[in-house]
């Protein structure tokens, strides 16, 4: 009987299950094409290169917000460490970018000398160039793979993945949940950023890695073109990431992780290995964050430990909350909306408000507004911006899979599952 019913409830195709998937991918493709056409590098040049970069970076932020939504909105783990994984991804790719570019410069400068340079001389030259600012002239062991793009690309995936795996295993195994886990992840983030702030961490201390916007060997290609390449890559990563997230949250797997969010103990008693599910989600989203970081920082051009500070991860949570957690497009909308708005306000473009006795300069007051609106969203609009879409879909009668929408607030979450 059970086999029969399992056969009867066949999985519908993803697209049917998630009509928003097609809409999202379509919007993303449209956006990418539009920006390409309007860009300086490939199109008519309406959008400046720096704005193309801002848009590309925003796509990366959307990707990490997507990861945050999966781990928090769907699995109920409020991780305050995903921006750390994001930063690790950036550092991993940044090491190769910096090494390879410096290597070209050093080889060029040594080529004019009387004797051909030895491998050691080249390596010393690169090390002096890179680590001169922190008073070192040797490669720390952490840079052992920096000469190889392949290995550093692997590191983009493996380092955040392994870190999340080990940390998550330790934390979930000892049943650290809820706010404890949040604080613990925050502590991890703080520890990492403090470690990177040291000059002898091997990653140039608070100078961070810089000059990442210059792709080694592609010095002739103008930034206007490179920026569009990165926009494409970011859009592709976001599209694939969205697809992967949709695949994860749909079907049985998705039901289990949502159940873990709603009542972890009950899921455990039903015989599911809760820790394994959580660990998978935590690690997967960490990798997603790492990839997003690896695409973000070459566009930003510089990475330093301040980017990893706990506050960054909190802002990430803010984006997801404002966009609407528990729905994937909500995270994307939230990240795009808040980060672009933030750029606008802090960039000094927003007009100051003169109250007569005091002039509100948005550069200074934007953070206050953000903080307070965050409180307001938590209190009054827990669904965030994404909740607005419910106004449209609510007109249709919901498919409740036969379940009654009980009086308990917990059961209301089934609605989230629909999206």
């Amino acid at each position, binding site marked *: 009987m059970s086999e029969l019913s399992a056969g009867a409830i066949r999985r519908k195709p993803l697209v049917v299950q998630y009509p928003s998937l097609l809409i999202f991918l379509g919007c993303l493709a449209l956006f990418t094409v539009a920006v390409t056409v309007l860009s300086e590098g490939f199109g008519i040049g309406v959008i400046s290169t720096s704005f193309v970069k801002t848009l590309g970076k925003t796509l990366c932020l959307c990707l990490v917000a997507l990861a945050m939504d999966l781990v928090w909105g769907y699995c109920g783990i409020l991780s305050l460490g995903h921006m750390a994984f994001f930063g690790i991804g950036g550092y991993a790719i940044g090491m190769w970018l910096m090494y390879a570019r410096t290597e070209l410069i050093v080889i060029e400068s040594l080529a004019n000398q009387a*004797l051909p340079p030895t491998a050691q001389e080249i390596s010393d030259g690169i090390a002096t160039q890179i680590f001169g600012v922190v008073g070192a002239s040797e490669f720390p062991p952490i840079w052992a793979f920096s000469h190889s793009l392949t290995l550093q690309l692997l590191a983009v995936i493996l380092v955040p993945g392994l870190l999340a795996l080990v940390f998550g295993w330790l934390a979930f195994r000892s049943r650290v949940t809820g706010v404890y886990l*949040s604080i613990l992840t925050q502590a991890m983030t703080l*520890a990492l950023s403090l470690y990177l702030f040291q000059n002898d961490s091997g990653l140039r201390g608070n100078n961070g890695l810089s000059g990442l916007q210059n792709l080694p060997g592609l010095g002739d290609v103008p930034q206007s073109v490179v920026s569009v390449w990165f926009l494409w890559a970011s859009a592709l990563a976001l599209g694939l990431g969205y697809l992967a997230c949709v695949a994860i949250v749909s079907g049985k797997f998705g039901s289990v992780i949502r159940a873990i969010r709603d009542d972890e103990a009950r899921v455990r008693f039903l015989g599911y290995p809760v820790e394994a599910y959580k660990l998978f989600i935590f690690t997967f989203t960490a990798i997603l964050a790492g990839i997003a970081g690896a695409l973000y920082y070459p566009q930003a051009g510089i990475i330093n430990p301040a980017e990893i500070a706990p506050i960054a991860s909190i802002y990430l949570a*803010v984006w997801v909350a404002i966009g609407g957690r528990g729905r994937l497009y909500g995270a994307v909308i939230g990240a795009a909306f808040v980060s672009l708005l933030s750029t606008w306000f802090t960039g000094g473009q927003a007009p100051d408000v003169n109250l007569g006795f005091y002039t509100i300069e948005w550069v200074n007051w934007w953070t206050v507004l953000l903080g307070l609106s965050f409180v307001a969203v938590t209190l009054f609009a827990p669904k965030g911006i994404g909740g607005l879409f419910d106004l449209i879909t609510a007109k249709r009668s919901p498919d409740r899979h036969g379940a009654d929408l009980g009086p308990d607030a917990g059961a209301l979450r089934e609605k989230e599952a629909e999206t």
Partner: protein
Amino acid sequence: MARFLVLLWMVLSLPASAVAQDANAPIQKLLQEHGEIIAKSSRKTIGPAIDALGDSSLPKAPEVLQKWQDKELWFIKESGLFVYTEKVDGKTERMIDIATGEPIGEIAKRDLKQLKPNSGIRGMIGAALVKFQLRDPSRTTRLRALNAISRDAEETHLSALRDVMGDESDPEISAQMARLERLLTIEFGETEDERIAAIQHFEGDLGVDVRAALNPLVSVRVEAAEAAPEGEDVVRVLSPGSEDLSREDAYDILVRAELAKPRISRDDKRAALIANISDGEVAGIQVASLNSEDARDLAYAALAEQGTVDPVATEAEVDETLGGFVFFERYTGAPPAVALAAASVLNGIETKVALNQTADLALDAVSLASIYFLAAIGLAITFGVMGVINMAHGEFIMMGAYTGFVVQQFVPDHTLSIIIAIPLAFAVTFGAGVTMERLVIRHLYHRPLETLLATFGISIALQQIAKNIFGTQARPLTAPGWLDGSLVFNDIVSISYIRIAIFVLALLFLALFLFVMNRTRLGLEVRAVTQNPRMAASMGINPDKINMLTFGFGSGIAGIAGVAIGLYAKVTSEMGADYIVQAFMTVVVGGVGNIWGTLLGASLVGTLQKYIEFLNPSNTLAAQTYMILFIILFIQFRPRGIIALKGRAAEA
């Protein structure tokens, strides 16, 4: 015309003024006796003149010595009499009698000669002067002289010090003199026995000056010899390639002693090869192929064979040469007996220093722990008792500190301002806490993650508001004068009064908390609401009110903690954020819902941080990193903290 008149007048007045000077004053007579060697001003011969001045009991002698040292003593070429001078104009000087200090007329500069003692002579004069200063009637002058000696001791000071020691009446100065005499004996004592006795006098003394005096005595030099060395002054034998003596250093010693062929640095080798490039080849080897060290070694060896460059040792030769020698350390700072005595006394001192450092570290740890306790106690109430996580707690600490700062702007008296600031800070943060509870937290009691995020929103808003009002620079919160300085046990163990005050404050808060929780109606109701809000409500307790008051109480304590922390650190808009993670760690490590757990947690976190800082003192960032990692690991083993609640309360 005017110039001529002046000159004329000067010529006329010259003999008169010379006569006016008292050539028979005792000080002038004394100087005249040694006039020749003084004028000669040579370090080798000047001794008797300085001694004569120093040993004379003439009251003017110190002044003359001082002026002489300062190059202000002149003599008249014609008569050889000594005078001080004052400048009148470029060519004329006014003479001043050295015996009376009275002006005695003017003279052309070319008729005078200035004494310009060189630095050696000035040093000798200084030593002679010290004798006078040590006998000076003014206490401060004597102390200053002692200080000068201890900063920059010379051999002559020792005898000077010994001369005056018996006559000193002030006990404090007398003790200082005795100590200084011993220290100088270590350095300048005439016989080895005398020096050893002085060294042993300082057995177990923690003074930095003692270590400074002893350390040079035990300095060593690494030497090499073909046979194993004999003799007392050999400290130990080193083997090349060990941690204390690298192969390179060992070989360099041999090269310096001209016992081995030199080796050549990579850069020199490169330069030598470049110098010998001809037609794109070096010694018949293509330049393009010289892109590895091995290839360059070969090319250099080929050059050496041709005789173009000096041959250098290869690695194998280095090993062979090193094998033929014994390397050892030899005492160079003092004769062996003295050095050995110094080493043994230093050893004892170092053990004692280590013990005292441990004590000092413990005091530091206690003071850091009390700061963490202060920062965490409010959190222990809101998080531990109520289960509400308040990320804006750090900002309440900051608000308290800024309240103190504002109060100090209006009340200049520091003691009074702190007395006003403490209750005011409590009131301000109590109000803020109650407002926040009413407006935000009340609605989120069953959604802890949302509470965390909402309070985070408040936290960043408050931080930015503080930044907008007070600016980004650090504001001072000045402690009252009576809290300045520190309680000094010895040269190593000391603790500032402000840290003691914070410690006392932490104890007070512990007592206050225990009193409120266990002995008051409010505490009873808080505990009741914590355990079972519905039951408490049916007993006539208003849980809303209790929650509000508890939250206000926790926030108020954060405000007072802010005043305390502000006294010890600077007040900035980010100070709260600096403490919040440690405060949460303290609560989590200690165990939620138990004040003793918080105390233990604070002690653990504080001790740990100080200990890691001690192991790696240059790097407080690393200390924090490792501490956090430790705590993450700790939570693996005791997920509910040191003191875990058991039973149903644990699930609440």
